[in-house]
């Protein structure tokens, strides 16, 4: 049954996703200014008024980082199963199918080889548009295969993370993806290859506590929420308000946990420069 459901999503998917008509103006959640949507979008989804970085889907991220025409997605044939027969208020396969139709993607990750300002690299982006970028077996496998591809081809690896954490619907198997991806990164590390981890809003839970914090260089986008435990959980534990800016990129840099906080406009340049510095 799962199989039938999973295979049908591409058939159900409209040939070209018709974008939902959205207003041409929107209010920036950070500065509350009314901004022209097209200006925001051509500004790499950054508010032209206050530089608020809007959350973007993986395909948009890839488009911003790679040389035009140089990226082709791989591992897209990997599909979630429902190993536990998981059902909360909704059955997991139904949830997956709904997310596939909504996002036009098989799961919460998009990866492939590419060129970044002429430098070859393996790029792997988590996708918030699919179950909050949560990591189940498919995400764990694609991240691991991306690491292995970098290893085989001797290429630098760039992973852009954004995730609510490990995917509860695959329970223990999701948890094991943390070990699997980290173990693969140990091999990449021993082989002397570069791994740049880019943390974007939000990166929490099992993704942060595995590959996302293992970059040789760790870059964060401005004001991104980055942490192990979510702020709500911490608030409940401590029963006190959290300080302003807690678990945001700049705070993590102060704590010595990330190397650089980089504006989205500069991300592509910075990645290329780091590849050059490390001899990639």
């Amino acid at each position, binding site marked *: 049954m799962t199989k039938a459901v999973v295979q049908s999503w591409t058939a159900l998917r409209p040939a070209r996703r018709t974008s939902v008509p959205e207003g041409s103006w929107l209010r920036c959640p950070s500065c509350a200014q009314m901004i022209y949507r097209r200006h925001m979008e051509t500004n790499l989804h950054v508010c032209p008024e206050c530089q608020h970085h809007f959350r973007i889907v993986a*395909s948009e991220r890839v488009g911003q980082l790679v040389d035009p025409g140089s990226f082709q997605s791989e591992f897209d044939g990997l599909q979630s199963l429902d190993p536990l027969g998981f059902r909360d208020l909704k059955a997991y396969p139904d949830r997956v199918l709904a997310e596939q139709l909504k996002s036009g993607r098989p799961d919460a990750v998009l990866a492939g080889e590419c060129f970044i300002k002429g430098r070859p690299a393996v790029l792997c982006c988590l996708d918030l548009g699919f179950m909050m970028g949560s990591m189940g077996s498919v995400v764990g496998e694609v991240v691991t295969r991306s690491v292995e591809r970098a290893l085989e081809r001797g290429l630098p690896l760039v992973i852009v993370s954004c995730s609510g954490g490990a995917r509860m619907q695959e329970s223990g198997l999701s948890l094991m993806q943390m070990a699997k991806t980290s173990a693969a990164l140990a091999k990449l590390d021993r082989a002397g290859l570069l791994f740049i981890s880019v943390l974007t809003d939000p990166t929490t839970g099992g993704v*942060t506590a595995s590959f996302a914090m293992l970059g040789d260089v760790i870059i964060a986008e401005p004001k991104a929420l980055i942490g192990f435990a979510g702020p709500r959980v911490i608030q409940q*534990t401590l029963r006190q308000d959290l300080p302003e800016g807690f678990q945001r990129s700049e705070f993590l840099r102060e704590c010595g946990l990330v190397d650089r906080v980089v504006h989205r406009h500069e991300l592509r340049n910075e990645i290329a420069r780091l590849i050059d510095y490390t001899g990639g």
Partner: protein
Amino acid sequence: MPATMSTFYQLEFEKPIVELDRKIADAEASGSVNGELSSLREQRSKLLKELYTDLSPWNTVRVARHPNRPQTRDYLKMLGRDFTELSGDRRYGDDPAIVTGFARIGEFKVLVVGHQKGKSTQEKLDCHFGCAHPEGYRKALAKMKLAEKFGVPIVTFVDTPGAYPGLEAEKRGQAEAIAVNLREMSVIKVPIVSLVIGEGGSGGALGIAVADRVAMLANAWYSVISPEGCAAILWKQANERNNSAAADALHLTARDNLKLGIIEEVLPEPAGGAHRDPAQTAATIERWVVDSVRALKDVPPETLVQRRFERFRKLGRYQEVQAPETPVQAPEPA
């Protein structure tokens, strides 16, 4: 023995046992005929076995959290000799929520790394109820590297609701500490065996459980999130009913984890759980540790590490179908 049991903290589902314990105590006090007493005792042990044979997952979680359930330090006293505790991460401090040190178990010298929840109120507070801070994970790794240097096998006991979710823990890099353990444990060149003795809560558990062999005590649980955490998110509210539903859905019992290939073995507990007979449980654990270390000690380090990698590499369930015809391509610039 049963008389002392009734002074124990009792779980809701064990109420029938409490009733029987009372009857047995009464019978003992009134000096009743031996026949009646032994029939009551027989009834009791039968009931205990029944209650524990098909525990619901949520009740399993309760047993795993039983306040009298033996912890790492209890097992060390029962099965370890010459325990030599080693403290501190050499960077920030010493986290009592993770105990580390050399010990002799059976014929082996090993390094023991284990979560400690605490027994007395003060110890519980010091240990944050078994929720380790980054310095705990860093201490664990530092001692594991020490063990590696001298070819000493590593035994870890997992017993945590999860890594500590707090302001200081985040500041000091909770996520990084766990992540580094996952990466480094995968390449440590001595045997590592891990046993979930109570709670195996998420990354906080896995942070000391990247091992060649992983086992669980029969009434332990191991999962990506606690039933309460899962219920709060997916069922929108943590309450008795939702927690129980989440515990079912998460497949967190030892048997479930065995089926999923996440662990190699389930170690039996005495009737009525580990807390009813710590010594017998310790004996079971000792046998498992000795057998496991014996099986691994002569494996060449490179093979050991490669097999450990493969053990985790193959975990995950997915299918591979033909990719959609139109792969995502980099768009032309706007």
